[in-house]
């Protein structure tokens, strides 16, 4: 009994340390997306390099595709950009950009400077589509299946590790779905 009482505070302390340690490994900015498994939200926005034409997610029905939210003012997008350039270089993927709350000229200049991995970028100057898609921190990346449902959301810059371990395997799996 005596030993028990002496050990009890130590045990409580260890439990506390374990919980706090688990807490430290989690990123509070990464929130579960309410969209997973649901149909991707619609928008209809002009295409950055062809402003007279519009892009809408429903045009991608029947294809597995990636939507990457980016902006020229976003610092961590620059780190991510090289990763995306490599992604389209080495893998067969449909990558669409959503240029979020950006100046059209800044955005075009940014792409010509750092390379343009996107099939096209939709220009969301007012952040309307951003609200529809629940964007709260750029960059964000979504993957949609052939039926147009969101299957993955990645908040923050995509790394080469994410590409190798998460994104490419998922795309391969989705390509095989009917």
């Amino acid at each position, binding site marked *: 009994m005596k030993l028990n009482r002496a050990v009890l505070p130590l045990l409580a302390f260890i439990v506390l340390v374990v919980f706090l340690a688990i807490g430290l490994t989690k990123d509070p*900015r990464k*929130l579960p997306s*309410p969209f997973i498994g649901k149909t991707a*939200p619609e928008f209809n926005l002009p295409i950055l390099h062809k402003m007279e034409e519009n892009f809408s997610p429903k045009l991608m029905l029947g294809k597995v595709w990636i939507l990457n939210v980016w902006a020229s003012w976003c610092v961590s997008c620059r780190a991510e950009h090289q990763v995306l350039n490599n992604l389209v270089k080495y893998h067969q993927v449909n990558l669409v950009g959503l240029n979020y709350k950006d100046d059209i000229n800044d955005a075009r200049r940014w792409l010509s400077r750092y390379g343009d991995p996107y099939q096209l970028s939709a220009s969301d100057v007012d*952040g309307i589509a951003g*609200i529809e898609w*629940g964007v709260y*921190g750029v960059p964000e990346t979504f993957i949609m299946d052939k039926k147009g449902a969101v299957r993955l959301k990645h908040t923050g810059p995509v790394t080469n590790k994410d590409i190798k371990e998460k994104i490419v395997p998922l795309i391969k799996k989705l390509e095989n779905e009917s």
Partner: protein
Amino acid sequence: MKSIMIILSLFCFLNPNIYAAAVEMKKFESDLHEQRYKNLIDELRCLVCQNQNLADSNSELAQDLRNKVYKMINDGQSDQEVMDFMVTRYGDFVLYRPPFKASTFLLWIGPFIILIIGLLVLVNFIRHRKRNVITALSNNEKEKLKQLLNDNKGKFK
């Protein structure tokens, strides 16, 4: 302590966000609309600066979402519709008072569980202490005590 309080309150005055957030002007059809708007932006969390609500935050996203709430109220949508709009896009996290369900069970019940554990430990502790205090001296111990006191009598004179 007092000087710390004074310094802290000075920092509050230096923070420009407090003024900037108050400057935003919006016109409402009625006082009721304005009250509903204020209640809603108090209840909704800013996703960028996670420990502020929409009313307090000055981030761009918070401004956009405030405008969205304003627009929805003017379009005649109910409070519940505004809340649902936010939750379907940003999840329960956007609510400062998340609903009670399986995934938020610990969030709501956790503090009470810890309180009960604390009370049990406290009661246990108090009981044990009482038992130790009450035990009276046995005859043997009394004898020993007397002896010790007598032994020391000479030394302190």
